[in-house]
């Protein structure tokens, strides 16, 4: 190991790595915590000269994303790079990479503004959010996270500090390198700061939650919504692989029959439909109503320490679609009415109707969050195939293996996530990934996989188009492949 004194640079605290710092199973030799971007540049330059492998870390909430790093000599903790420069009049903010996302959101909210992205993880830093680059449900009006980044300062593997973009929204000078680092998993450089364009907080919102009877029902609704001009901010699908038993604390739910999910190809057979979902548990305060968490296996349910705030009354464990509208109270009234009238026209054709839609004025608790544990597969499909994909993937993940999984995601963007219950067998993940990759135009990558899934050899990336070009970019920025080697499809 490189002796510590060789890594001492000004403005950078250095300590030995411990088991708590492990990246997968790799305990780093050292953890460096630079106080600012200059110190970050110095430690990167030194580690470059020493040929050390480097993994950047914010709050460490996504250290298990992507492929498993092969080596991690040095963990660079960006926590010292925590600052917010909010230029409210310009609807722009520049933020140090180590700034907690929650701090940023609080500052912006106090000024009546927001970064228009729904984080998919709780906690975490801005640098981590950008490096993982995943956008939550509300991306239809203002775009994905990558569309909101207007400038970035990155420290390259060799310690050179490089800025691209700037602090103005409109700017076409130079290459938009921030696009590469957004979602680059820290393999092309370490993000030091990011500038974002902001939006005003909408005066009000409505969430229309629509229980789904079948895939066909979902398809009719989304097609009918597309024909309107209501301009939703999100159309989010929630499709469990199978229906868990109704929560015992839910008095009304106990009387409901539970059915398996609909058959793969048709909604014509009423017999297999979830014909009657539990009606809204109006004052249910139990943990069972946490809506976006994967329905956990019963034993782990007791481990929940933080009960969710009041959440929408529609049962989270049935398939549903959530339409989010944002705007003025006057405008929302008319738009919500339009959505409801569309739903009436798209009612299920066969079998008993599911409960009617429900309108809320707040987002459900845990909105947009992926489960904090278990394997998550990211699947992109042509948007019109979203419901079909959810059904097919749910069936592959769940029924074939008896695994609990849930498919969520943005229907109009075909951006889906298959979240497996912790401990789900690798075979279920492998079949799901292979099934998705076998379809033309679909892609599937392991956003995060449990160690036993990686151990089973499931390829996190698959044959992604443009891979040779991506590797060429990687070779330019990190010729020694020292930045989180193994996380991206390195070809090593």
């Amino acid at each position, binding site marked *: 190991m490189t002796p510590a004194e060789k890594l001492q640079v000004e403005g950078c605290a250095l300590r030995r790595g411990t088991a708590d710092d492990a990246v997968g199973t790799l305990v780093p030799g050292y953890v460096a915590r630079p106080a600012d971007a200059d110190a970050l540049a110095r430690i990167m330059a030194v580690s470059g000269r020493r040929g050390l492998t480097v993994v950047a870390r914010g709050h460490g909430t996504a250290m298990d994303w992507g492929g498993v790093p092969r080596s991690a000599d040095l963990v660079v903790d960006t926590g010292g790079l925590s600052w917010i420069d909010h230029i409210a009049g310009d609807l722009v903010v520049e933020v140090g990479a180590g700034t907690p996302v929650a701090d940023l959101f609080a500052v912006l909210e106090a000024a009546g503004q927001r970064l228009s992205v729904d984080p998919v993880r709780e906690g975490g830093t801005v640098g981590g959010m950008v490096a993982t680059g995943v956008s939550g449900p509300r991306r239809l009006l203002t775009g994905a996270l990558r569309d909101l980044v207007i400038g970035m300062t990155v420290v390259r593997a060799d310690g050179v500090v490089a800025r691209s973009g*700037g602090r103005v929204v409109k700017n*076409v000078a130079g290459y938009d390198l921030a696009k590469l680092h957004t979602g680059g998993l820290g393999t092309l450089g370490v993000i030091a700061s990011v500038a974002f364009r902001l939006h005003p907080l909408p005066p009000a919102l409505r969430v229309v939650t629509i229980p789904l009877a079948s895939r066909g029902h979902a398809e009719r609704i989304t097609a009918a919504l597309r024909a309107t001009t209501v301009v939703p901010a999100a159309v989010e699908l929630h499709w469990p692989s199978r229906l868990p038993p109704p929560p015992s604390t839910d008095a009304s739910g106990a009387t409901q029959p539970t059915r398996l999910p609909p058959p793969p190809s048709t909604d014509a057979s009423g017999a297999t439909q979830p014909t009657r979902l539990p009606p809204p548990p109006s004052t249910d305060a139990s943990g069972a109503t946490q809506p976006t968490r994967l329905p956990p296996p019963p034993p782990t349910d007791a481990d929940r320490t933080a009960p969710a705030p009041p959440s929408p009354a529609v049962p989270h464990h049935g398939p549903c679609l959530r339409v989010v509208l944002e705007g003025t109270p006057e405008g929302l009234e008319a738009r919500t009415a339009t959505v409801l009238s569309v739903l009436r026209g798209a009612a299920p054709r066969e079998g008993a109707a599911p409960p009617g839609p429900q309108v809320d004025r707040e987002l459900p608790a845990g909105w947009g969050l992926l489960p904090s544990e278990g394997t998550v597969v990211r699947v992109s499909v042509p948007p019109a195939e979203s419901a079909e994909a959810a059904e097919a993937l749910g069936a592959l993940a769940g029924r074939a293996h008896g695994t609990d999984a849930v498919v969520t995601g943005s229907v109009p963007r075909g*951006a889906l996530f298959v979240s497996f219950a912790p401990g789900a067998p690798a075979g279920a993940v492998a079949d799901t990934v292979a099934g998705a990759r076998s379809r033309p135009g679909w*892609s599937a990558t392991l956003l995060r996989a449990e160690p036993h899934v990686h151990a089973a050899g499931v390829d996190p990336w698959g044959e992604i188009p443009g891979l040779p070009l991506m590797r060429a970019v990687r070779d330019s920025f990190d010729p020694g492949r020292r930045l989180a080697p193994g996380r991206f499809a390195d070809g090593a």
Partner: protein
Amino acid sequence: MTETAPATRTPAALAALVPVLRDICGEDGVLTDASRRRTYESDGLTHHRSVPGVVVLPTTAEQVAAVVRLCSDRGVPFVPRGAGTGLSAGALPHAEGVLVVTSRMRRIIEIDVDNECAVVEPGVANLDVTRAAAPHGYYYAPDPSSQQVCSVGGNVAENSGGAHCLKYGFTVNHVRGLDIVTPSGELVSLGGRSPDAPGYDLIGAFVGSEGTLGIATRITVNLTRAPQKTVTLLSAFTSMDAGGRAVSSVIAAGVLPSAMEMMDALAIEAAEKAVACDYPQGAAAVLVVELDGPAAEVDAQLAEVVRLCGEAGSFETRTASGPEERARIWKGRKSAFAAVGRISPAYIVQDGVVPRTALPEVLRRITELSESSGIRVANVFHAGDGNLHPLVLFDDTEPGAADRAEEVSGAILDLCIEHGGSITGEHGVGVDKACKMPRMYGPDDLATFDLFRRSFDPDGIANPDKLLPTPRLCGERPGVRRGVHPLVESGRADQF
């Protein structure tokens, strides 16, 4: 001036390529005749000229790939060109290179309403995408002023915006898939109908790369649902400051117009002379605001914007919701560039950007610069996003006038950079601003751009001398325009 020696003959190194190029593109797909090559000597920035060594007009992606592979094998530079409407000399030909023109690749391959996207070839005109989508209730959102003629492939190269990018973003926000021919001649598919392609976001980095990373041969763009209602508002002020206050208060109120445009007295005067746009008499500034979306939202926002303009000191506000009335309001704004060409023998147009909050200060400084130099400056700009288009007017027959205008123009760009802005908001860097890049970015930033460029183009054959400063290039003067742009003159394009 970037004038090359009269190129009457295809250079010898290229002459050897011609038979192979004819095999690839057919007899009529290769232009060697000097007079025909000369028609491609410039793009929309006509001041920069260079007759291409040879011009090819491929009709398929395979032909583009074969041409580029040949260039790569022989170490010959190539320059991609769409419709040639660009304003930064990004498609300035190389005298010893191949100009690859995509104008024969004009198929709209598919309008896919279910997936809300269109698949097109690069030569398709921007507005033709909207025309094809309109019967389905959709449109293609990026709307550069040359949208009737500019090509989608060119929009991809330049990351084109338009008046409505304030709300809807730029080309990069609307491209879902690209087939590209890399500088080594490989045909690579990135993304497609499914958004969020896995791996590094090469689409995001390719869009706006000004033809230096290759040539897009097939493009999948998002289609946007046509809004239920669109309203255009014209508000007149007795000072630019008052107009600027209105812009700030609209933004502060949380309203996001689809467009917010401003003109000063000189620009209004020019527009009145040219097209009799009948803007309110005595206006020192006019603000054009467009709102679109669900009718109930637009109505609520309109009331708010009218109120805020009044509070900021507007003495007259007109609103229009019908297409013809709206076009009347836009007429003055859209004619401004051409109109200025009629009141001044020559002018330089800048494309600098400043943070919106710096607008009043920067506009005051521009006025001071104009007064102290005696050079007139007309201001026409996208106020919502701080993208200035100051038009620096001069008489190019007067000795020294061009240099003084150039000085003022340069000083305006310096102002933009001083205030944390950009040297170009939408026209691109091209040749025109390549030498200004070091004012905005440091040596390490530029070296990193170059590192990225070389990962696609190690031999430096794709649109060389564009985007980044080179010793060969710099020291030359950026663009001066004379009169009205030919495309505007012929009624084929607006410029605004």
